[in-house]
């Protein structure tokens, strides 16, 4: 199964956000956040196809 977030993507997001990562942290974060996103899958049961996005309240 494909990962939800890869190490490469973590590096790219951190670069865009100018967030400095420790050595090895990108790989660790990718694994950790992949696990978190995996657990969020139950949230998709609430997804409404035509809900759209309201952005900030």
């Amino acid at each position: 199964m494909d990962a939800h977030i890869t190490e490469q993507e973590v590096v790219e997001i951190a670069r865009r956000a100018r967030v400095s990562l420790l050595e090895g942290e990108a790989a660790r974060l990718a694994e950790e956040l992949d696990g978190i996103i995996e657990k969020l899958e139950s949230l998709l049961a609430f997804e409404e196809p035509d809900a759209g996005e309201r952005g900030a309240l």
Partner: protein
Amino acid sequence: MSLMGGPFEALTACEIRAGLLEGRFGAREIAQACLERIERHDDAVGSFLEVTNEAALRAADAIDAKVAAGRLEELGPLAGVPVAFKDNMNLAGTHTTCASRMLAGRVSRGTAECVRRVLDAGALPVGKLNMDEFAFGSSTETSAFGRTRNPWDLERVPGGSSGGSAAAVAAGLVPLALGSDAGGSIRQPACLCGVVGVKPTYGLVPSQGVEAFATGLDQVGPFARSVEDAALALDVLAGRLDRGSLRRGLSEAGGGDMQGVKVGLVNAFMEAPGLSAEMREAVQRAADAMALRGAVVREVEIPGAQAAMDAYRVLGPCRAFENLACLDLARYGCGDACEAPLEFGAEARRRIVLGGHLLSADEGRRYRRAAEAVRKRIVEDYGRAFSAVDVVLAPVTPRAAFRFGEVTDPTEMHLSDMFTVSVNIAGNAAMSMPVGLGSQTGLPVGVQIIAASWGEANMLRAAVALERAFGRPAVAPGFSV
């Protein structure tokens, strides 16, 4: 130090103002008593990042001058009351760091509107309080500037992210402090430290000048050691000193009478795995106390609340990432340094990267849509509940204060907010009310009183009933005379 024979730490904000007006003591005496306590005790607690001695004494002298000139009508509702502020609130001339190394040394040029209202009401500004870095946390352990300790057990956390605010009030260093709450960051530390903590309805208190990182979720609110003080602080923060005054409404409602008030209990909360027996007992004791005073207690359901944690885990990081750009504005005059990497702590990095992913990836759009659908569902659920009851009684957090380093798994740390986040997602009002000590740990336990949006009057009325039943929160042992 005592004030006219009584210990400073025993006085509430209302008592301080009354004593000032009656001439029992002066504002400078109050300021000195407060600053002396901070100097004597805060090494042990670590609640303050900065103490503003000169500003406090200057404000005190201005009040004393008015009293000496007989201009008592010019004294505001917080005249002479020492107040401290979470370090995400700008106060001109102070460092506002959000407990992050990234903002170390940054001095505020302006003052947040909520802080300005408190100072205009006559409060004495005594300093800035420790917090989790950028409010990302539930224990104040992620602060870049050291830990804050729970005054009830110095080996345990005060909660977070407004841990410094809760601890300062619990140790009797100040009678009032301000914090902010995006998922439980006022209510949870208030519970763990045994003080009153209020998250007002979203929009009641202005957020201009507060370095918020969860726009749409967080709200500034007070910590206090009495319900009356909390109501007074809310009046000042909301700009409601005449019509709609919550404090005046408390005395008009009849202290502690709950006749005809309908109180809801959420079975899913009470049966939640991970909820400690003593926290469950605390909620039941509170419900029983309210019933004894005439309340009708019944079950209500908030089905959407079960998905609230997951929705918050999407909405929070997305907001954090979106607000990140504001940090460049926060680093005034940084010049070429603006291109340098931003030095966040580990928890902040985790949330920002997650937010970045959820905002940019195709699948992220699905999670955000689902989270917004959960928000809509929770708003509807609370609406239905509040058509049947006046307030909902719930746990604040699963367990009493834990030891430093005991909770290291971020997922487990997030569970601290499992009973509080749905309120932020819906925008409702809620508060944490202490109800004594836990039967197992002997540590403070509290209950959450949730009201409909703009339902602060109902919430505070129920809180007064609990205060009559369980007593006003005491200063933590070891910090009281």
